């Protein structure tokens, strides 16, 4: 009998019989096991710790690949849960008992995001083997990278809001640790504090939203709530508040407009950490949460409009800031905000699978760009692109890899960024909305412009001569640094392949939402418009920054205030600092005064009053402890007698 069962299974192939949730759980816990192994056994060995972390990241990546293969064969929602906590809410009826389920799920959306998370994590860790070789804190980096991977996988595989919030908070902590990796530098320490504070604003919104959802629906499971949002249990205004609170968490984590200020500062992190945060984390937490809670947003069309507006404004504003930014790493960080903003805009406009696809393709290319920027900054010992130039001759490998990354991010056909932007435009064209289409076009154009402004400024023209700097000593990186970057470049170029040829396992047909139109529009208008916009950006960048036929200084000389406002990010960061110093700190001072003078004062007065009442008895000799104990017993006895008398009198 077992033999026939085995034969039946063999005939179906392993992918039909393997459990997808087994592989998702496996992938989730591997980085945690690596973390525990390093802490327990190899905390003193840089080499062993790094290799343990890389090995487990590799196995986790393999697990994610298997999960993806299973999901491609059987695209269905499955979850494996255990009861973690069970308590009673004290109300009568069905809702009196609440069970908190913990587990992990497996569906196409999670499988795709998990592949991106584990892949980016693996390749940045391989890169870090070489990049951090001569640095302090290698073990700390690998610990925090494993921790980050674990918490991101947890967010992606959570089955309920409660579990998701737990891992969500873990990613906040991990981001804090990674950004503050070089904590001896004042700028890094300050950036880490800023990351934690600014994302917490969004996180508190998300927590409030989750609490609200729980008290209205008495459930937190994604699958259980799926059909309940639109069931009329909660009115339109309630749904709007819920979805806006959930969106607040996304705004904080994905650095959308009101809470974007942490992202450019977080470029202070070491290159692999920045790649992990900007490539994987912002997409895998921010856009993923939107995609996972899509039923909630569908039930509240007004919230979707807000999402679209925030995403669109962020995408355009961050692209403009990237145009004026001089710091290489901050420029890429602004580019990240803009790309994620585009995904959020597409989500708000109803292009579900294209939005997830944009976040997915963005992860690979942006991680690659951060890794390349890390090498360039290290070789040139400056972060200002005005002081770079002419690296094409000296760093050919890095140049080619950065070209792939920039072209993929900018949406130059046929690389992955083009395919995802094309998917967005195609899905939007099927439900015509001129404003959204125009914004997507503008952002695509701007992304071509700023990406190639960056590329030409760094690689074209003459190498800028500086004091105590010898361009002859610039070396192309080799070994593991190159291995990690090449692997990322392959993925950045090729993840859109199936969608490009419109055959095989297309992403937009794979990650779908029931009832949503998916797939590419039949017409080629979207592709033509996307490639035109991106290539136009490339051409303008080539004219202005590559060939210097129309130098940028001549344009900005006419309107000097525009670049200044752009490079200060419209003074939003300054406004926040002013607001913090003048409103929040003042409020804190007032609260401090109330605490010290009013509350402490009241306590001190009470104590002083009691001490003052003892004044008439000061002449008596100080009582010894046995006398005090006797007095206490006597008082107790007196109280007992009194109580007995009163109770007896009351006939109780």
């Amino acid at each position, binding site marked *: 009998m077992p033999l026939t069962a085995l034969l039946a299974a063999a005939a179906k192939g392993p992918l039909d019989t393997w459990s997808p949730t087994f592989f998702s759980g496996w992938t989730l816990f591997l980085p945690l096991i690596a973390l525990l192994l390093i802490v327990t056994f190899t905390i003193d060995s840089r080499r062993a710790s790094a290799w343990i972390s890389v090995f487990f990241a590799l196995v986790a990546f393999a697990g994610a690949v298997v999960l993806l293969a299973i999901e491609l064969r059987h695209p269905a929602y499955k979850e494996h849960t255990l009861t973690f906590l069970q308590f009673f809410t004290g109300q009568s009826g069905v809702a009196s008992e609440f069970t908190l389920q913990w587990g992990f799920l497996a569906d196409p959306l999670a499988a795709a995001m998990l592949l991106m998370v584990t892949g980016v994590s693996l390749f940045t860790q391989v890169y870090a083997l070489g990049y951090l070789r001569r640095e302090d804190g290698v073990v700390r980096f690998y610990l925090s990278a494993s921790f980050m991977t674990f918490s991101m996988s947890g967010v992606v595989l959570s089955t309920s809001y409660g579990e998701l919030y737990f891992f969500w908070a873990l990613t906040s902590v991990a981001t804090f640790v990674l950004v503050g990796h070089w904590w001896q530098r004042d700028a890094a320490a300050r950036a880490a504090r800023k990351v934690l504070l600014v994302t917490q604003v969004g996180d508190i919104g998300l927590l409030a939203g989750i609490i609200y959802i729980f008290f209205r629906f008495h459930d937190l499971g994604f699958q259980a709530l799926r059909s309940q949002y639109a069931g009329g249990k909660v009115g339109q205004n309630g749904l709007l508040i819920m979805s806006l609170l959930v969106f607040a968490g996304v705004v904080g984590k994905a650095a959308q407009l009101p809470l974007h200020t942490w992202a450019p500062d977080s470029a202070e992190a070491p290159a692999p950490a920045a790649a992990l945060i900007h490539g994987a984390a912002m997409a895998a937490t921010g856009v993923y949460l939107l995609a996972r809670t899509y039923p909630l947003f569908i039930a509240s069309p007004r919230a979707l409009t807000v999402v679209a507006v925030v995403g669109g404004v962020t995408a355009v504003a961050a692209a403009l800031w990237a145009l004026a930014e001089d710091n290489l790493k901050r420029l890429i960080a602004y580019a990240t905000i803009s790309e994620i903003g585009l995904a959020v805009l597409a989500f708000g406009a109803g292009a579900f699978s294209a939005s997830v696809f944009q976040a997915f393709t963005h992860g690979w290319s942006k991680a690659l760009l951060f890794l390349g920027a890390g090498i360039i900054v290290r070789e040139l010992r400056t972060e200002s692109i005005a002081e770079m130039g002419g690296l094409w001759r000296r760093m050919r490998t890095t140049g080619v890899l950065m070209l792939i990354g920039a072209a993929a991010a900018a949406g130059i056909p046929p690389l992955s960024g083009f395919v995802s932007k094309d998917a967005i435009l195609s899905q939007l064209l099927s439900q015509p909305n001129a404003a959204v289409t125009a914004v997507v076009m503008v952002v695509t154009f701007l992304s071509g412009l700023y990406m190639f402004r960056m590329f030409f400024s760094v690689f074209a023209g003459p190498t800028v001569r500086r004091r105590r700097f010898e361009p002859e000593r610039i070396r192309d990186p080799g070994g593991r640094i190159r291995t990690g970057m090449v692997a990322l470049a392959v993925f950045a170029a090729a993840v859109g392949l199936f969608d490009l040829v419109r055959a095989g396992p297309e992403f937009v047909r794979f990650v779908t939402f029931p009832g949503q139109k998916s797939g590419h529009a039949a017409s080629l208008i979207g592709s033509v418009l996307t490639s035109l916009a991106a290539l136009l950006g490339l051409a303008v960048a080539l004219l202005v920054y590559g060939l210097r036929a129309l130098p940028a200084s001549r344009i900005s000389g006419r309107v000097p205030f525009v670049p200044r406002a752009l490079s200060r990010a419209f003074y939003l960061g300054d406004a926040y600092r002013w607001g913090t110093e003048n409103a929040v700190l003042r409020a804190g001072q007032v609260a401090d005064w109330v605490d010290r003078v009013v509350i402490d004062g009241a306590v001190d007065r009470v104590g002083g009053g009691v001490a003052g009442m003892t004044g008439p008895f000061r002449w008596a000799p100080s009582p010894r*402890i046995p006398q005090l104990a006797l007095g206490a017993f006597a008082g107790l006895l007196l109280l007992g007698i009194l109580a007995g008398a009163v109770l007896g009198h009351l006939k109780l």
Partner: protein
Amino acid sequence: MSVDLSYFLTLSAGLFGIGCFGMLAKRSALAVLMSAELMLTGANLALVAFTRFGAGAATRHAPGAALALFASVSGAAEFALGAVIVVVIYRSRRTVWVDDYDLKG
């Protein structure tokens, strides 16, 4: 002969009384603390006895026993804290005799 509530209450009162006497009569600070523990044990015993034999003993709820459990835990914590205080006082005064302590310092 059957053991009923009165036996436990007698034992409980005895423990409490011994503790009370020890607290007043003992001169060593540690012995005073131990006497306090005896009193606590007496009270706990009464609580458990009422849970077992008193009204409502047939139901499965045992609030008295739960209370006794908490009380003994906090009693242990209290003894640890008291012993530490005695050690600290011993270091500065070189004595554990409560007669020699005065509160004015």
